């Protein structure tokens, strides 16, 4: 193993790691938004919204994320959607993880005891007030951990956009292999950097989880 080489090239990977972090943050934000809308749709009173949300979830969970990204990036221009690789990556991955987050959020919401909801309605609270005061505060606590699992998967999932040449960690490793012929070292650097990012995000999530649990 060529440690000297690794020490020489790793600074060039840091910029790529920064791109991976940006991709992660943006896709997670987009995913949370899609997840909220999706969960609201899945739990709606209106059959059409329920159907649309269920269709969204089954399409994006039922096809490979890579196909979704290719569809958007390579297929998009055919139907008038012009995106650069980074944009296509963010949108493709964000909407994809949103489908998983939809189910996570929905799961947390429906796990709240029906008796409490009845108690709130009996006091005269409207559906919305009951959701805001009883269901949501408890569901938020319950969803932090499983959303953490989605987020962990998503950070690793950003590697997929190497396939459309976004210069993030995985793509950068491949490019340096082209000039150094040292795949073991290059992938090891990328792996270590992923590990650092994921460990840090995991720490943030368990911190949040602990905070809401204590009160």
């Amino acid at each position, binding site marked *: 193993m060529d440690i000297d080489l690794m020490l020489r090239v790793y600074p060039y990977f840091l910029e790529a790691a920064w791109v991976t972090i940006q991709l992660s943050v943006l896709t997670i934000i987009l995913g949370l938004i899609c997840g909220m809308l999706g969960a609201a749709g899945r739990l709606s009173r209106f059959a059409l919204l329920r159907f649309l949300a269920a269709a969204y979830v089954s399409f994006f969970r039922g096809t490979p994320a890579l196909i979704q990204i290719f569809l958007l990036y390579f297929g998009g221009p055919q139907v008038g959607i012009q995106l650069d690789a980074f944009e296509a990556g963010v949108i493709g991955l964000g909407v994809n993880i949103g489908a998983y987050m939809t189910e996570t959020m929905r799961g947390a919401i429906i796990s709240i*005891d029906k*008796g*409490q909801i*009845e*108690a*709130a*309605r*009996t*006091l*005269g*609270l*409207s*559906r919305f*007030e009951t959701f805001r*005061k*009883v269901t949501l*505060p*408890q569901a938020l*606590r319950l969803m932090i951990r499983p959303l953490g699992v989605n987020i962990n998967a998503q950070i690793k999932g950003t590697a997929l956009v190497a396939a459309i040449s976004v210069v993030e960690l995985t793509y950068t490793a491949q490019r340096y292999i082209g000039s150094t012929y040292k795949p073991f070292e290059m992938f090891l650097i990328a792996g270590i950097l992923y590990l650092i990012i994921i460990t840090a995000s995991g720490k943030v999530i368990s911190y949040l989880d602990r905070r809401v649990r204590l009160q």
Partner: protein
Amino acid sequence: MTDPKPFVEIRHAQKSYGSLEVLKDISLTVQRGEIVAIIGPSGSGKSTLLRAINDLDPLTGGEIILDGVQVNKTLPHRQYEKHINGMRQQIGMVFQHFNLFPHLSVRDNVTMAPKLLKGISGKEADKLAEEQLTHVGMLERIDYYPSQLSGGQKQRVAIARALAMEPKLMLFDEATSALDPELVEEVNLVMKKLAEEHMTMIIVTHEMDFAASVCDRVLFMDQGVVVEEGPPGKIFKNPDMDRTKEFLRKHLAGSK
């Protein structure tokens, strides 16, 4: 006893789940300040009837009238929601499994609805919580969370929570059946106190002694109908109907 206008009036209440008819044309009235017990075997429709009164389980036929206002009016969705939320503010309900809000302190369990729906705040809300919790003997636990309370304590807080909305009518659905025997009495005492204050109450219960000592009238339900009703002395000592006799015999044998 001859008040011409009943406080609660149930007219031809009918409820089906698919082809299963759970309430079969039940009519009854309750006077202001009256305390009515509903007894009967499991599955006879007691909870369904009680929960129809505040429209938690909507009837498939018939009318519920509280103090001259129909609870289960036919209205467009939005208007109905508004109407029913207003009606429910006047009807307190206590459940077998307490259904306290675990993420809120005892104080906030009691004041959440009045704050939201009656616009009280700060000192006023604190005063309300203190009053209601004193009433049920739970003042010293005001800053606890539900998970830190015993079953009997939880139920007393649940009663305080319902009373904080100043309801005209209180509904109890087996308020003590989930409690350990030694915790039943503390909840019964609170209910007795309410009775002395002339709160109108409809109480579904399996506790015949309690019904006999607190209630003005007892209804015996079986298979979706009110088989027999009358003062506790009559129903428990000298019922007319065979079904009532049989139920009481089995029930009293079972509880000894």
